[in-house]
């Protein structure tokens, strides 16, 4: 069965399709609100928006159960929301509040939720991959029936940790899906300007890994490909590299003037906006009406408004607790 066949079949399921649309919209609206809160100086530091890449976050996450481990990057709001982390603890984290998902220690780049096995946002490009390999190793050694989903961007492919991790995972046949979100830019440097081989999925073959690439703007295609990858891994075949080809519509971060790509390029990608594409498809299939969409948007708006109010009203972590969670302290 091809990915397209699976996509078509999945598309028949209206409830699930509306769920996927809703999840993508939830990320989009959350990120728009985050940008607004950054402009209002409620959020500081680096803020990397996921807008444009929602199909990868949402489609990919459908392949993982609550028993599985997730490792993400500093552009991890989409994965966190798709992993069912409440918008309010994410917003509170970015506001630097005690109620944030990392108690205000992490900010936008470092969301954690151990109860959801969301092992965090890693802001050293490629730095999460070895940790993900270790989580998969622990599962294998303890015979846990779980896999690890490891998200990273195309920039990570240039790091030694990518190559070391793929090799180690393949060598030890570890249960891990490496999910590369290829948005074509490592910060401001275009893929063809930093990679001699721009087909990332092909790099897997050097380590004997199975791999494939998928249209990262098509949520059903990403979901199908991620589920295929996860099934492959769950069957004990070792790791898998899935490359999702996508694009970020916003700049690298809020601090980025976006001087390195043309407006025409951005506009051409926006014509393939994963949310618009999916909405159109659902309407064509008669699965989505204006009232449906209005209801979804209204529910999301409520969740995000609540998130902002919660973050605003939440207390700050007391300064006295600054050292509380530092490891390796004297115990005597």
């Amino acid at each position: 069965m091809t990915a397209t066949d699976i996509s078509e079949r999945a598309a028949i399921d209206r409830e699930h399709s509306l769920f996927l649309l809703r999840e993508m919209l939830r990320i989009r609206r959350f990120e728009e609100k985050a940008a607004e809160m950054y402009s209002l100086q409620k959020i500081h530091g680096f803020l990397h928006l996921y807008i444009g890449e929602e199909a990868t976050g949402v489609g990919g996450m459908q392949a993982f159960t609550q028993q599985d481990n997730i490792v993400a990057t500093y552009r991890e709001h989409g994965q966190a929301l798709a992993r069912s982390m409440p918008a309010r603890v994410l917003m509170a984290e970015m506001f630097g509040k005690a109620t944030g998902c990392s108690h205000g220690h992490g900010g936008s780049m470092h969301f954690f939720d151990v109860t959801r096995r969301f092992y965090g946002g890693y802001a050293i490009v490629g730095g999460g991959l070895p940790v993900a390999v270790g989580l998969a190793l622990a599962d294998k050694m303890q015979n846990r029936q779980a896999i690890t989903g490891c998200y990273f961007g195309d920039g990570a492919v240039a790091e030694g940790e990518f190559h070391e991790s793929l090799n180690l995972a393949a060598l030890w046949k570890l249960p891990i899906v490496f999910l590369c979100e290829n948005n074509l830019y490592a910060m401001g440097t275009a893929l063809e300007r930093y990679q001699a081989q721009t087909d990332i999925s092909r790099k897997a073959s050097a380590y004997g890994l199975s791999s494939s690439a998928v249209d990262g703007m098509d949520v059903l295609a990403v979901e199908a490909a991620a589920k295929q990858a996860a099934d492959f891994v769950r069957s004990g075949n070792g790791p898998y590299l899935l490359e999702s080809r996508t694009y970020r519509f916003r700049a690298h971060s809020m601090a980025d003037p976006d001087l390195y790509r043309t407006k025409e390029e951005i506009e051409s990608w926006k014509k393939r906006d994963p949310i618009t594409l999916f909405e159109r498809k659902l309407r064509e299939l008669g699965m989505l009406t204006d009232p449906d969409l209005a209801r979804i948007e209204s529910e999301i708006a409520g969740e995000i408004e609540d998130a902002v109010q919660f973050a605003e009203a939440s207390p700050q972590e007391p300064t006295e607790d600054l050292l509380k969670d530092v490891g390796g302290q004297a115990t005597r």
Partner: protein
Amino acid sequence: MTKMTYREAVRAAMRKALRDDPRVFLMGEDVGRYGGAFAVSLGLLAEFGPERIRDAPLSESAFVGAGIGAALGGMRPIVEIMTINFSMLAMDQILNNAATLRHMSGGQLNVPLVCRVATGGGRQMAAQHSHSLEGWYAHIPGIKVLTPATVSDAYGMLLAALHESDPVFIFEHAILYPLEGEVDESAETFDITRAAVIRSGSDVSLITYGGTLGKTMQAADRLASEGIDAEVIDLRILRPLDTQTIVNSVAKTHRAVIVDEAWRTGSFSAEISAQIMENAFDNLDAPVARVCSAEAPMPYAKHLEAATLPQVDQIIAAAQELVPRHG
């Protein structure tokens, strides 16, 4: 008490941990079939098999990171890094992940990882196998830094480290592996909180750790024959530092010589000196002295390496400089 070498003590501790706790496994370069670059893990593969005595590729960053991930996933990994110079290849994982995850996650995660790292010079291994960089590690909040200098500590500190909930780095000075000593294998607990006064004295405190403890003890013996009564402190743990034992000693002797195989500039010896100044300034009768390695990459030739490393004569000279001549 059982007589054994430092190497055998580390191996005995690993064997005990592997037998007692199914979560423990050893991972590193050539730890299995080869038996360890320093033969520390020799024989463990036969007893515990390749799942638990795990040969890793030459990928320091990946296997240290995998140790972090495995620790997060419920295991108790012991990761061996062949030499401290190689550990530079894993520094991203060590600093940005191992030391950071607990705090950065708001206390949700902790990383019970034990890393064993061979350190130090004296074996003509030149500039990429011989440095003493453990002081760099001691700079990092979030981890513990242990430097066993005795056979007993080589055994006990590793077992204690495996009961910690946060990352512990154990630096084994490679010159110590053949050292013989006694181990109490029946002991239930082992201290990793306090420095040790190895020799009590009243005229000067000689403060050291790891590979230079032997030379410092030799210096103390020779100083005694000259009528200078030196106290010798083995720091044992660089982080968290047992400042109190240092301060107590200096309060008694009023003089301190720090002996450290690392370089002098921006070093752990500078930290000890600062701690003495901050906490025992009024007790000092003389400036703190330091005996460190020459500020050069470690050379290969025997005479050059010897000229680079701290030597007994230098320790003696430094102590003599501080202690007023009797009569």
